[in-house]
């Protein structure tokens, strides 16, 4: 008798308390339904997975990380959803592989036109503090062959403007400097779908530069 049943039910989907088909469920996990009577496909949302593995759904989540293996012009994160994440935080340590000083820009949604952005900066070099506003989205300035550490907080504000502020530590030893910047885009956006850190000069993001992007909210 048992072998007859086994022969009849060789597949998971033939059971009574499971889906009848795998159609449309590629990549999905299964979970016990709320009535605790059967298995159903999970929607794989962050909060659902967080609940299943018993971690808080409201922790900051690492979205991606990348270490530059050979000098390049830019690092771009795609597939983002700023409307869901609310805020992104980028941690970076970058090295200028060239013998000229270059800005690092932050572009959103593929818009690489500098004139579409403004940045206000404060620079502290010992007791000398200077400020300026520039018509480009500079988040850091890399001295020639220098390294730096910076973080950038990024959002789309309630009026739909792209905003960021960055904090940079540059130069070394007795020359160490602090730079703070606040930037926006000149027109509104509907979402943040991609972010690009681009050097002003060719191949100025050197091998060994590291970037980690976090999102502040799990939807």
């Amino acid at each position: 008798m048992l072998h007859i049943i086994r022969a009849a039910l060789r597949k998971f989907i033939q059971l009574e308390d499971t889906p009848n088909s795998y159609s449309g469920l590629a990549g999905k996990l299964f979970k016990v339904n709320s009535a605790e009577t059967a298995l159903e496909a999970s929607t794989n949302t962050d909060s659902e997975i967080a609940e299943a593995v018993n971690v808080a759904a409201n922790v900051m989540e690492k979205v991606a990380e990348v270490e530059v293996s050979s000098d390049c012009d830019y690092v771009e994160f795609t597939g983002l959803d700023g409307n869901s994440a609310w805020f992104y935080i980028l941690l970076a340590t970058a090295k200028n592989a060239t013998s000229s000083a270059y800005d690092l820009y932050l572009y959103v949604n593929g818009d690489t036109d500098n004139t579409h952005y403004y940045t206000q900066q404060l620079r502290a070099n010992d007791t000398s503090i200077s400020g300026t506003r520039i018509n480009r989205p500079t988040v850091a300035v890399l001295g020639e062959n220098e390294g730096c550490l910076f973080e950038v907080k990024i959002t789309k504000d309630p009026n739909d403007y792209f905003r960021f502020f960055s904090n940079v530590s540059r130069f070394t030893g007795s020359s160490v400097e602090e730079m703070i910047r606040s930037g926006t885009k000149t027109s509104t956006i509907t979402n943040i779908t991609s972010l690009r850190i681009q050097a002003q000069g060719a191949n100025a993001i050197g091998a060994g530069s590291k970037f980690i992007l976090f999102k502040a909210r799990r939807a």
Partner: protein
Amino acid sequence: MKIKGLRVDVKTGRVEEVFEEISDEEYQKRLEEAKKAEEEMRIREMIERKKQEILERLAREELIKEGRLPEAYK
């Protein structure tokens, strides 16, 4: 002119090297912009340093005049 980038798809975690074509004119414009920005920063820094020096000198002179700082600090 081709510029090289690293594209990270956060949905799949895939990192790929990509190349983007920009015109020579655009590239030259960027280089000039970089030079101009560096020069602007250098000049701003020089002005700020001079402002600091002048303020420091004036502050010392005033304090000496008020008798709160010895002449030796001039």
